[in-house]
Protein backbone atom coordinates (compact mmCIF):
# COMPACT_ATOMS: atom_id res chain seq x y z
CA UNK A 1 0.00 0.00 0.00
CA UNK A 2 3.07 2.22 -0.18
CA UNK A 3 2.00 3.04 -3.70
CA UNK A 4 -1.16 4.72 -2.35
CA UNK A 5 0.98 7.07 -0.30
CA UNK A 6 1.57 9.13 -3.41
CA UNK A 7 -1.24 11.66 -3.84
CA UNK A 8 -0.88 11.56 -7.63
CA UNK A 9 -1.42 7.80 -7.67
CA UNK A 10 -4.48 8.16 -5.45
CA UNK A 11 -5.80 10.93 -7.67
CA UNK A 12 -5.26 8.85 -10.81
CA UNK A 13 -7.06 5.85 -9.31
CA UNK A 14 -9.92 8.05 -8.09
CA UNK A 15 -10.34 9.65 -11.52
CA UNK A 16 -10.20 6.27 -13.20
CA UNK A 17 -12.83 4.81 -10.87
CA UNK A 18 -15.26 7.63 -11.47
CA UNK A 19 -14.66 7.69 -15.23
CA UNK A 20 -15.19 3.94 -15.62
CA UNK A 21 -18.45 3.94 -13.65
CA UNK A 22 -19.81 7.16 -15.13
CA UNK A 23 -19.21 6.25 -18.80
CA UNK A 24 -21.63 3.32 -19.31
CA UNK A 25 -24.22 4.96 -17.06
CA UNK A 26 -23.75 8.11 -19.11
CA UNK A 27 -24.67 6.14 -22.24
CA UNK A 28 -28.08 5.45 -20.73
CA UNK A 29 -28.39 9.09 -19.70
CA UNK A 30 -27.75 10.05 -23.33
CA UNK A 31 -29.98 7.36 -24.89
CA UNK A 32 -32.86 8.16 -22.58
CA UNK A 33 -32.41 11.93 -22.90
CA UNK A 34 -31.88 12.34 -19.19
CA UNK A 35 -29.12 14.96 -19.31
CA UNK A 36 -31.02 17.35 -17.09
CA UNK A 37 -31.92 14.44 -14.85
CA UNK A 38 -28.20 13.96 -14.23
CA UNK A 39 -27.79 17.68 -13.56
CA UNK A 40 -30.63 17.80 -11.06
CA UNK A 41 -29.32 14.77 -9.20
CA UNK A 42 -25.76 16.09 -9.12
CA UNK A 43 -26.71 19.60 -8.06
CA UNK A 44 -28.88 18.25 -5.25
CA UNK A 45 -25.75 16.66 -3.81
CA UNK A 46 -24.45 20.03 -2.57
CA UNK A 47 -27.48 20.17 -0.29
CA UNK A 48 -26.48 16.71 0.90
CA UNK A 49 -22.98 18.00 1.62
CA UNK A 50 -24.42 20.87 3.71
CA UNK A 51 -26.66 18.48 5.66
CA UNK A 52 -23.81 16.05 6.22
CA UNK A 53 -21.64 18.84 7.62
CA UNK A 54 -24.48 20.13 9.80
CA UNK A 55 -25.12 16.70 11.29
CA UNK A 56 -21.44 15.71 11.23
CA UNK A 57 -21.99 12.57 9.20
CA UNK A 58 -20.00 11.37 6.24
CA UNK A 59 -20.17 13.56 3.15
CA UNK A 60 -20.64 10.46 1.03
CA UNK A 61 -23.74 9.35 2.94
CA UNK A 62 -25.25 12.86 2.94
CA UNK A 63 -24.69 13.35 -0.78
CA UNK A 64 -25.95 9.85 -1.57
CA UNK A 65 -29.14 10.32 0.46
CA UNK A 66 -30.07 13.69 -1.02
CA UNK A 67 -29.11 12.68 -4.59
CA UNK A 68 -31.19 9.56 -4.25
CA UNK A 69 -34.15 11.54 -2.93
CA UNK A 70 -33.85 13.98 -5.83
CA UNK A 71 -33.42 11.21 -8.41
CA UNK A 72 -36.45 9.34 -7.07
CA UNK A 73 -38.53 12.52 -7.10
CA UNK A 74 -37.62 13.29 -10.70
CA UNK A 75 -38.06 9.69 -11.74
CA UNK A 76 -41.48 9.60 -10.09
CA UNK A 77 -42.59 12.81 -11.73
CA UNK A 78 -41.47 11.76 -15.20
CA UNK A 79 -44.10 10.14 -17.33
CA UNK A 80 -46.90 11.88 -15.48
CA UNK A 81 -47.43 14.50 -18.11
CA UNK A 82 -45.43 17.31 -16.52
CA UNK A 83 -43.38 19.58 -18.77
CA UNK A 84 -40.24 17.69 -17.80
CA UNK A 85 -37.78 20.01 -19.46
CA UNK A 86 -38.93 22.99 -17.43
CA UNK A 87 -39.45 21.00 -14.25
CA UNK A 88 -35.95 19.53 -14.40
CA UNK A 89 -34.48 22.94 -15.09
CA UNK A 90 -36.26 24.30 -12.03
CA UNK A 91 -35.22 21.36 -9.84
CA UNK A 92 -31.59 21.28 -10.99
CA UNK A 93 -30.88 24.93 -10.35
CA UNK A 94 -32.99 25.38 -7.25
CA UNK A 95 -31.35 22.31 -5.68
CA UNK A 96 -27.99 23.97 -6.26
CA UNK A 97 -29.19 27.31 -4.92
CA UNK A 98 -30.73 25.79 -1.79
CA UNK A 99 -27.55 23.80 -1.23
CA UNK A 100 -25.36 26.87 -1.47
CA UNK A 101 -27.61 28.81 0.89
CA UNK A 102 -27.67 25.89 3.32
CA UNK A 103 -23.87 25.75 3.32
CA UNK A 104 -23.70 29.47 4.17
CA UNK A 105 -25.72 28.82 7.35
CA UNK A 106 -23.01 26.53 8.64
CA UNK A 107 -21.24 29.09 10.79
CA UNK A 108 -18.29 27.81 12.69
CA UNK A 109 -17.52 25.19 10.09
CA UNK A 110 -15.01 26.53 7.70
CA UNK A 111 -15.47 24.61 4.49
CA UNK A 112 -13.92 25.03 1.15
CA UNK A 113 -17.00 25.36 -1.03
CA UNK A 114 -14.91 25.25 -4.18
CA UNK A 115 -13.79 21.72 -3.27
CA UNK A 116 -17.38 20.50 -3.48
CA UNK A 117 -18.34 22.52 -6.54
CA UNK A 118 -15.31 21.61 -8.64
CA UNK A 119 -13.86 18.63 -6.83
CA UNK A 120 -10.57 18.22 -5.06
CA UNK A 121 -9.07 15.14 -6.61
CA UNK A 122 -5.57 15.82 -5.25
CA UNK A 123 -6.90 15.58 -1.69
CA UNK A 124 -8.36 12.08 -2.14
CA UNK A 125 -7.47 9.86 0.83
CA UNK A 126 -7.07 6.09 0.84
CA UNK A 127 -10.47 5.91 2.53
CA UNK A 128 -12.04 8.05 -0.23
CA UNK A 129 -10.51 5.70 -2.75
CA UNK A 130 -12.17 2.72 -1.12
CA UNK A 131 -15.54 4.51 -1.25
CA UNK A 132 -15.05 5.57 -4.88
CA UNK A 133 -14.03 2.12 -6.08
CA UNK A 134 -16.67 0.43 -3.96
CA UNK A 135 -19.31 2.64 -5.55
CA UNK A 136 -17.86 2.21 -9.04
CA UNK A 137 -17.81 -1.58 -8.79
CA UNK A 138 -21.37 -1.54 -7.47
CA UNK A 139 -22.57 0.64 -10.37
CA UNK A 140 -20.76 -1.44 -12.99
CA UNK A 141 -22.09 -4.65 -11.46
CA UNK A 142 -25.62 -3.28 -11.42
CA UNK A 143 -25.40 -2.21 -15.07
CA UNK A 144 -23.84 -5.50 -16.20
CA UNK A 145 -26.47 -7.51 -14.36
CA UNK A 146 -29.42 -5.55 -15.79
CA UNK A 147 -27.82 -4.72 -19.16
CA UNK A 148 -30.21 -6.52 -21.51
CA UNK A 149 -33.29 -5.42 -19.59
CA UNK A 150 -32.06 -1.83 -19.31
CA UNK A 151 -31.37 -1.72 -23.02
CA UNK A 152 -34.79 -3.12 -23.94
CA UNK A 153 -36.57 -0.73 -21.59
CA UNK A 154 -34.56 2.16 -23.02
CA UNK A 155 -35.43 1.18 -26.57
CA UNK A 156 -39.16 0.92 -25.93
CA UNK A 157 -41.13 0.30 -22.72
CA UNK A 158 -43.82 -1.70 -24.50
CA UNK A 159 -41.27 -4.10 -25.98
CA UNK A 160 -39.91 -4.53 -22.47
CA UNK A 161 -43.34 -5.33 -21.03
CA UNK A 162 -43.97 -7.85 -23.81
CA UNK A 163 -40.66 -9.52 -22.94
CA UNK A 164 -41.60 -9.79 -19.28
CA UNK A 165 -39.44 -6.85 -18.17
CA UNK A 166 -40.80 -4.08 -15.97
CA UNK A 167 -39.38 -0.80 -17.35
CA UNK A 168 -40.13 0.99 -14.09
CA UNK A 169 -37.89 -1.36 -12.17
CA UNK A 170 -35.13 -0.74 -14.71
CA UNK A 171 -35.64 3.00 -14.32
CA UNK A 172 -35.14 2.50 -10.59
CA UNK A 173 -31.87 0.67 -11.23
CA UNK A 174 -30.63 3.62 -13.28
CA UNK A 175 -31.82 6.09 -10.65
CA UNK A 176 -29.92 4.23 -7.96
CA UNK A 177 -26.79 3.98 -10.09
CA UNK A 178 -26.96 7.68 -10.88
CA UNK A 179 -27.17 8.66 -7.21
CA UNK A 180 -24.20 6.40 -6.45
CA UNK A 181 -22.06 7.88 -9.20
CA UNK A 182 -22.90 11.40 -8.06
CA UNK A 183 -21.99 10.60 -4.47
CA UNK A 184 -18.61 9.11 -5.36
CA UNK A 185 -17.77 11.70 -8.01
CA UNK A 186 -18.10 14.81 -5.84
CA UNK A 187 -14.56 14.54 -4.58
CA UNK A 188 -13.20 14.05 -8.10
CA UNK A 189 -15.00 16.53 -10.35
CA UNK A 190 -17.43 18.32 -8.00
CA UNK A 191 -21.19 18.68 -8.33
CA UNK A 192 -21.08 21.16 -11.18
CA UNK A 193 -19.21 18.86 -13.54
CA UNK A 194 -20.50 15.40 -12.65
CA UNK A 195 -23.08 15.51 -15.42
CA UNK A 196 -20.24 16.27 -17.83
CA UNK A 197 -18.42 13.08 -16.83
CA UNK A 198 -21.62 11.19 -17.59
CA UNK A 199 -22.51 12.76 -20.88
CA UNK A 200 -19.36 13.94 -22.63
CA UNK A 201 -17.54 10.58 -22.91
CA UNK A 202 -20.76 8.85 -24.04
CA UNK A 203 -21.43 11.54 -26.64
CA UNK A 204 -17.81 11.35 -27.82
CA UNK A 205 -18.13 7.57 -28.21
CA UNK A 206 -21.30 7.71 -30.32
CA UNK A 207 -19.69 8.33 -33.75
CA UNK A 208 -17.25 5.46 -33.14
CA UNK A 209 -19.87 2.88 -32.26
CA UNK A 210 -22.17 0.52 -34.12
CA UNK A 211 -23.65 -1.22 -31.08
CA UNK A 212 -24.61 -0.11 -27.57
CA UNK A 213 -21.88 -2.28 -26.04
CA UNK A 214 -19.19 -0.72 -28.19
CA UNK A 215 -20.46 2.74 -27.28
CA UNK A 216 -20.22 1.91 -23.58
CA UNK A 217 -16.71 0.48 -24.04
CA UNK A 218 -15.48 3.49 -26.03
CA UNK A 219 -17.07 5.83 -23.49
CA UNK A 220 -15.13 4.07 -20.72
CA UNK A 221 -11.92 4.35 -22.71
CA UNK A 222 -12.47 8.04 -23.47
CA UNK A 223 -13.44 8.71 -19.85
CA UNK A 224 -10.29 6.99 -18.63
CA UNK A 225 -8.08 8.90 -21.08
CA UNK A 226 -9.71 12.17 -20.06
CA UNK A 227 -9.29 11.41 -16.35
CA UNK A 228 -5.63 10.43 -16.56
CA UNK A 229 -4.71 12.96 -19.25
CA UNK A 230 -6.61 15.71 -17.43
CA UNK A 231 -4.81 14.93 -14.20
CA UNK A 232 -1.43 15.07 -15.94
CA UNK A 233 -2.28 18.26 -17.79
CA UNK A 234 -3.57 20.02 -14.70
CA UNK A 235 -0.38 19.09 -12.84
CA UNK A 236 1.78 20.52 -15.60
CA UNK A 237 -0.35 23.57 -16.42
CA UNK A 238 -1.32 24.20 -12.79
CA UNK A 239 -5.02 24.27 -13.64
CA UNK A 240 -7.96 22.99 -11.55
CA UNK A 241 -8.08 19.23 -12.08
CA UNK A 242 -11.82 18.50 -12.39
CA UNK A 243 -12.43 21.11 -15.09
CA UNK A 244 -9.25 20.04 -16.92
CA UNK A 245 -10.54 16.45 -17.08
CA UNK A 246 -13.84 17.66 -18.55
CA UNK A 247 -12.01 19.92 -21.04
CA UNK A 248 -10.04 16.95 -22.31
CA UNK A 249 -13.19 14.84 -22.69
CA UNK A 250 -14.80 17.73 -24.58
CA UNK A 251 -11.80 17.90 -26.94
CA UNK A 252 -12.16 14.18 -27.66
CA UNK A 253 -15.86 14.81 -28.32
CA UNK A 254 -15.00 17.56 -30.82
CA UNK A 255 -12.55 15.28 -32.63
CA UNK A 256 -14.85 12.26 -32.88
CA UNK A 257 -17.87 14.36 -33.87
CA UNK A 258 -16.02 16.13 -36.66
CA UNK A 259 -14.41 12.86 -37.71
CA UNK A 260 -17.77 11.11 -37.63
CA UNK A 261 -19.56 13.68 -39.74
CA UNK A 262 -16.69 13.72 -42.28
CA UNK A 263 -16.78 9.91 -42.49
CA UNK A 264 -20.54 9.81 -42.98
CA UNK A 265 -20.32 12.49 -45.66
CA UNK A 266 -17.67 10.46 -47.46
CA UNK A 267 -19.66 7.22 -47.24
CA UNK A 268 -22.73 9.13 -48.40
CA UNK A 269 -20.82 10.29 -51.47
CA UNK A 270 -19.49 6.77 -52.07
CA UNK A 271 -23.02 5.40 -51.97
CA UNK A 272 -24.06 7.86 -54.62
Amino acid at each position, binding site marked *: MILLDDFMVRAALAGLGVALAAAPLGCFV*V*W*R*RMAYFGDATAHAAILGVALALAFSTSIFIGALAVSLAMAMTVSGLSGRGFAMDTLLGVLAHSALAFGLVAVSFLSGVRIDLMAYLFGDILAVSAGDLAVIWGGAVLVLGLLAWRW*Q*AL*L*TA*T*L*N*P*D*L*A*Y*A*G*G*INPRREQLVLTLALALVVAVAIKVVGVLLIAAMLIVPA*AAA*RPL*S*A*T*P*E*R*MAAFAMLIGAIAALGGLGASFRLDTPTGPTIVCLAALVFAVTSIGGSLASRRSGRAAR
Partner: protein
Amino acid sequence: MRLIETRNLNLRLGGNLVLEGVNLSIERGEIVTIVGPNGSGKSSLLRAIVGALAPTSGSIIRAPGLRIGYVPQKLHIDPTLPLTVTRFLGLPRRHPAKDLRAALEQAGLPDLRDHQMADLSGGQFQRVLLARALMEKPDLLILDEATQGLDQPGSAAFYRRIEEVRQSLDCAVLMVSHELHVVMSASDRVICLNGHICCEGRPEIVAQAEEYRAIFGTGTQGALALYRHEHNHDHDHDHSADCNHEHPHEAAE
Protein backbone atom coordinates in the same frame (compact mmCIF):
# COMPACT_ATOMS: atom_id res chain seq x y z
CA MET B 1 -55.78 -24.37 -25.49
CA ARG B 2 -56.63 -20.93 -24.15
CA LEU B 3 -53.62 -18.62 -24.24
CA ILE B 4 -55.06 -15.44 -22.87
CA GLU B 5 -58.38 -14.25 -21.61
CA THR B 6 -59.70 -10.88 -20.51
CA ARG B 7 -62.59 -10.83 -18.08
CA ASN B 8 -64.76 -7.77 -17.87
CA LEU B 9 -61.74 -5.60 -18.66
CA ASN B 10 -62.14 -1.88 -17.99
CA LEU B 11 -59.39 0.56 -18.80
CA ARG B 12 -59.33 4.24 -17.96
CA LEU B 13 -56.72 6.50 -19.53
CA GLY B 14 -56.49 10.11 -18.35
CA GLY B 15 -60.08 10.09 -17.08
CA ASN B 16 -61.54 8.55 -20.22
CA LEU B 17 -63.00 5.09 -20.15
CA VAL B 18 -61.16 3.62 -23.14
CA LEU B 19 -62.24 0.02 -22.76
CA GLU B 20 -65.43 -1.13 -21.15
CA GLY B 21 -66.39 -4.67 -20.21
CA VAL B 22 -64.13 -6.37 -22.74
CA ASN B 23 -64.33 -10.16 -22.62
CA LEU B 24 -62.21 -11.99 -25.11
CA SER B 25 -60.11 -15.08 -25.27
CA ILE B 26 -57.52 -16.30 -27.73
CA GLU B 27 -56.91 -19.95 -28.49
CA ARG B 28 -53.70 -21.47 -29.77
CA GLY B 29 -53.40 -21.43 -33.54
CA GLU B 30 -56.06 -18.87 -34.41
CA ILE B 31 -55.66 -15.53 -36.14
CA VAL B 32 -57.82 -12.88 -34.52
CA THR B 33 -58.10 -9.38 -35.91
CA ILE B 34 -59.41 -6.37 -34.07
CA VAL B 35 -61.06 -3.74 -36.24
CA GLY B 36 -62.60 -0.48 -35.18
CA PRO B 37 -62.55 3.26 -35.84
CA ASN B 38 -59.81 5.58 -34.59
CA GLY B 39 -59.88 6.03 -30.84
CA SER B 40 -61.85 2.82 -30.32
CA GLY B 41 -59.23 1.45 -27.94
CA LYS B 42 -57.61 -1.09 -30.27
CA SER B 43 -54.03 -0.22 -29.44
CA SER B 44 -54.89 0.21 -25.75
CA LEU B 45 -56.37 -3.28 -25.69
CA LEU B 46 -53.22 -4.73 -27.23
CA ARG B 47 -51.04 -2.81 -24.80
CA ALA B 48 -53.12 -4.06 -21.88
CA ILE B 49 -52.73 -7.63 -23.11
CA VAL B 50 -48.97 -7.11 -23.48
CA GLY B 51 -48.89 -5.83 -19.90
CA ALA B 52 -47.94 -2.21 -20.65
CA LEU B 53 -51.25 -0.84 -19.36
CA ALA B 54 -52.76 -2.03 -16.10
CA PRO B 55 -56.52 -2.66 -16.19
CA THR B 56 -58.60 -0.27 -14.10
CA SER B 57 -60.82 -3.20 -13.21
CA GLY B 58 -61.38 -6.70 -14.48
CA SER B 59 -58.59 -9.14 -15.14
CA ILE B 60 -56.27 -10.47 -17.79
CA ILE B 61 -55.42 -14.13 -17.42
CA ARG B 62 -52.37 -15.42 -19.21
CA ALA B 63 -51.56 -19.11 -19.67
CA PRO B 64 -48.61 -19.98 -17.41
CA GLY B 65 -45.29 -19.36 -19.15
CA LEU B 66 -46.98 -17.57 -22.06
CA ARG B 67 -44.46 -16.09 -24.46
CA ILE B 68 -45.63 -12.96 -26.25
CA GLY B 69 -44.09 -11.59 -29.43
CA TYR B 70 -45.03 -7.95 -29.89
CA VAL B 71 -44.73 -5.83 -33.02
CA PRO B 72 -45.57 -2.23 -32.10
CA GLN B 73 -47.28 0.25 -34.39
CA LYS B 74 -44.08 2.21 -34.75
CA LEU B 75 -40.76 2.18 -33.01
CA HIS B 76 -38.72 5.31 -32.57
CA ILE B 77 -35.02 4.62 -32.10
CA ASP B 78 -33.14 7.56 -30.61
CA PRO B 79 -30.33 8.63 -32.97
CA THR B 80 -27.88 8.53 -30.05
CA LEU B 81 -28.46 4.78 -29.67
CA PRO B 82 -26.34 2.77 -32.12
CA LEU B 83 -28.13 -0.45 -32.97
CA THR B 84 -27.37 -2.96 -35.69
CA VAL B 85 -30.06 -5.27 -37.00
CA THR B 86 -28.36 -8.26 -35.38
CA ARG B 87 -28.09 -6.50 -32.03
CA PHE B 88 -31.75 -5.47 -32.20
CA LEU B 89 -32.79 -9.10 -32.70
CA GLY B 90 -30.93 -9.93 -29.48
CA LEU B 91 -33.28 -7.83 -27.34
CA PRO B 92 -34.60 -8.59 -24.79
CA ARG B 93 -32.63 -11.86 -24.81
CA ARG B 94 -29.49 -12.78 -26.68
CA HIS B 95 -29.54 -15.64 -29.16
CA PRO B 96 -26.86 -17.78 -30.80
CA ALA B 97 -25.44 -16.27 -34.01
CA LYS B 98 -26.80 -19.07 -36.17
CA ASP B 99 -30.35 -18.43 -34.90
CA LEU B 100 -29.97 -14.75 -35.78
CA ARG B 101 -28.73 -15.64 -39.27
CA ALA B 102 -31.63 -18.05 -39.75
CA ALA B 103 -34.12 -15.42 -38.58
CA LEU B 104 -32.81 -12.85 -41.06
CA GLU B 105 -32.76 -15.47 -43.79
CA GLN B 106 -36.42 -16.22 -43.13
CA ALA B 107 -37.29 -12.55 -43.04
CA GLY B 108 -35.69 -12.24 -46.48
CA LEU B 109 -33.02 -9.85 -45.20
CA PRO B 110 -29.80 -11.91 -45.05
CA ASP B 111 -27.56 -9.03 -46.12
CA LEU B 112 -28.66 -6.50 -43.52
CA ARG B 113 -27.03 -8.07 -40.46
CA ASP B 114 -24.67 -5.22 -39.73
CA HIS B 115 -26.84 -2.38 -40.97
CA GLN B 116 -27.97 0.24 -38.51
CA MET B 117 -31.69 0.06 -37.71
CA ALA B 118 -31.94 3.75 -38.57
CA ASP B 119 -30.80 3.07 -42.15
CA LEU B 120 -33.52 0.56 -43.00
CA SER B 121 -36.43 1.30 -45.31
CA GLY B 122 -39.96 1.14 -43.92
CA GLY B 123 -40.60 -2.35 -45.28
CA GLN B 124 -37.25 -3.71 -44.09
CA PHE B 125 -37.80 -2.18 -40.64
CA GLN B 126 -41.21 -3.83 -40.36
CA ARG B 127 -39.76 -7.21 -41.32
CA VAL B 128 -36.99 -6.85 -38.75
CA LEU B 129 -39.56 -5.93 -36.08
CA LEU B 130 -41.47 -9.11 -36.93
CA ALA B 131 -38.28 -11.19 -36.99
CA ARG B 132 -37.38 -9.91 -33.52
CA ALA B 133 -40.82 -10.78 -32.17
CA LEU B 134 -40.39 -14.30 -33.55
CA MET B 135 -36.96 -14.90 -32.00
CA GLU B 136 -38.53 -16.13 -28.77
CA LYS B 137 -40.86 -18.52 -30.62
CA PRO B 138 -43.92 -16.84 -29.13
CA ASP B 139 -47.15 -18.59 -28.24
CA LEU B 140 -48.99 -15.38 -29.01
CA LEU B 141 -47.92 -12.93 -31.68
CA ILE B 142 -49.37 -9.45 -31.28
CA LEU B 143 -49.26 -7.02 -34.19
CA ASP B 144 -50.39 -3.42 -33.94
CA GLU B 145 -51.06 -2.12 -37.44
CA ALA B 146 -47.85 -3.76 -38.50
CA THR B 147 -48.33 -2.99 -42.18
CA GLN B 148 -48.74 0.73 -41.70
CA GLY B 149 -46.64 2.52 -44.29
CA LEU B 150 -46.21 -0.54 -46.49
CA ASP B 151 -47.51 -0.54 -50.04
CA GLN B 152 -50.05 -3.15 -51.08
CA PRO B 153 -47.64 -5.80 -52.35
CA GLY B 154 -45.56 -5.24 -49.23
CA SER B 155 -48.47 -5.71 -46.87
CA ALA B 156 -49.80 -8.70 -48.80
CA ALA B 157 -46.39 -10.34 -48.46
CA PHE B 158 -46.37 -9.41 -44.79
CA TYR B 159 -49.69 -11.18 -44.14
CA ARG B 160 -48.51 -14.22 -46.09
CA ARG B 161 -45.55 -14.35 -43.77
CA ILE B 162 -47.86 -14.17 -40.73
CA GLU B 163 -49.80 -17.12 -42.09
CA GLU B 164 -46.54 -19.09 -42.54
CA VAL B 165 -45.47 -18.20 -39.02
CA ARG B 166 -48.76 -19.38 -37.60
CA GLN B 167 -48.31 -22.69 -39.39
CA SER B 168 -44.71 -23.24 -38.36
CA LEU B 169 -44.90 -22.05 -34.73
CA ASP B 170 -48.51 -23.06 -34.10
CA CYS B 171 -48.94 -19.74 -32.35
CA ALA B 172 -51.98 -17.53 -32.06
CA VAL B 173 -51.95 -14.17 -33.81
CA LEU B 174 -53.77 -11.14 -32.45
CA MET B 175 -53.61 -8.08 -34.64
CA VAL B 176 -55.07 -4.69 -35.25
CA SER B 177 -55.51 -3.73 -38.84
CA HIS B 178 -57.19 -1.11 -40.94
CA GLU B 179 -56.90 -3.06 -44.14
CA LEU B 180 -60.32 -4.64 -44.01
CA HIS B 181 -60.02 -6.52 -47.28
CA VAL B 182 -56.90 -8.31 -46.05
CA VAL B 183 -58.31 -8.79 -42.58
CA MET B 184 -61.40 -10.47 -43.92
CA SER B 185 -59.45 -13.01 -45.89
CA ALA B 186 -56.62 -13.60 -43.42
CA SER B 187 -58.45 -13.91 -40.09
CA ASP B 188 -60.23 -16.79 -38.40
CA ARG B 189 -62.09 -14.39 -36.18
CA VAL B 190 -62.77 -10.67 -36.29
CA ILE B 191 -63.51 -8.55 -33.25
CA CYS B 192 -65.20 -5.26 -33.92
CA LEU B 193 -64.20 -2.88 -31.14
CA ASN B 194 -65.53 0.53 -30.24
CA GLY B 195 -64.68 0.93 -26.56
CA HIS B 196 -66.59 -2.28 -26.02
CA ILE B 197 -66.84 -5.33 -28.25
CA CYS B 198 -69.62 -4.56 -30.72
CA CYS B 199 -69.60 -7.93 -32.35
CA GLU B 200 -67.25 -10.77 -33.06
CA GLY B 201 -67.12 -13.95 -35.04
CA ARG B 202 -66.02 -15.36 -38.36
CA PRO B 203 -65.22 -12.58 -40.82
CA GLU B 204 -68.18 -13.19 -43.11
CA ILE B 205 -70.55 -13.14 -40.14
CA VAL B 206 -69.13 -9.96 -38.64
CA ALA B 207 -69.31 -8.28 -42.02
CA GLN B 208 -73.06 -8.86 -42.03
CA ALA B 209 -73.57 -7.61 -38.48
CA GLU B 210 -75.49 -4.39 -38.04
CA GLU B 211 -73.02 -3.10 -35.45
CA TYR B 212 -70.15 -3.53 -37.85
CA ARG B 213 -72.00 -1.83 -40.65
CA ALA B 214 -73.00 0.98 -38.36
CA ILE B 215 -69.33 1.72 -37.72
CA PHE B 216 -67.77 1.05 -41.05
CA GLY B 217 -70.76 2.08 -43.10
CA THR B 218 -70.67 5.66 -41.84
CA GLY B 219 -67.10 6.00 -40.61
CA THR B 220 -65.05 4.66 -43.48
CA GLN B 221 -67.19 4.10 -46.51
CA GLY B 222 -64.17 3.45 -48.63
CA ALA B 223 -63.10 0.52 -46.53
CA LEU B 224 -66.49 -1.09 -46.61
CA ALA B 225 -66.70 -0.65 -50.34
CA LEU B 226 -63.31 -2.23 -50.64
CA TYR B 227 -64.41 -5.11 -48.49
CA ARG B 228 -67.57 -5.71 -50.48
CA HIS B 229 -65.56 -5.71 -53.62
CA GLU B 230 -63.19 -8.32 -52.25
CA HIS B 231 -66.04 -10.36 -50.90
CA ASN B 232 -67.61 -10.61 -54.30
CA HIS B 233 -64.36 -11.71 -55.87
CA ASP B 234 -63.00 -14.02 -53.29
CA HIS B 235 -61.07 -16.27 -55.66
CA ASP B 236 -59.58 -13.41 -57.57
CA HIS B 237 -58.35 -11.99 -54.32
CA ASP B 238 -56.40 -15.07 -53.28
CA HIS B 239 -54.87 -15.18 -56.67
CA SER B 240 -53.76 -11.59 -56.68
CA ALA B 241 -52.24 -12.00 -53.24
CA ASP B 242 -50.08 -14.74 -54.72
CA CYS B 243 -48.90 -12.52 -57.51
CA ASN B 244 -48.23 -9.64 -55.16
CA HIS B 245 -46.12 -11.81 -52.98
CA GLU B 246 -43.41 -12.23 -55.57
CA HIS B 247 -42.66 -8.58 -56.23
CA PRO B 248 -41.00 -7.50 -53.00
CA HIS B 249 -38.72 -10.53 -53.12
CA GLU B 250 -37.58 -9.67 -56.59
CA ALA B 251 -37.07 -6.11 -55.53
CA ALA B 252 -35.04 -7.16 -52.51
CA GLU B 253 -32.68 -9.35 -54.48
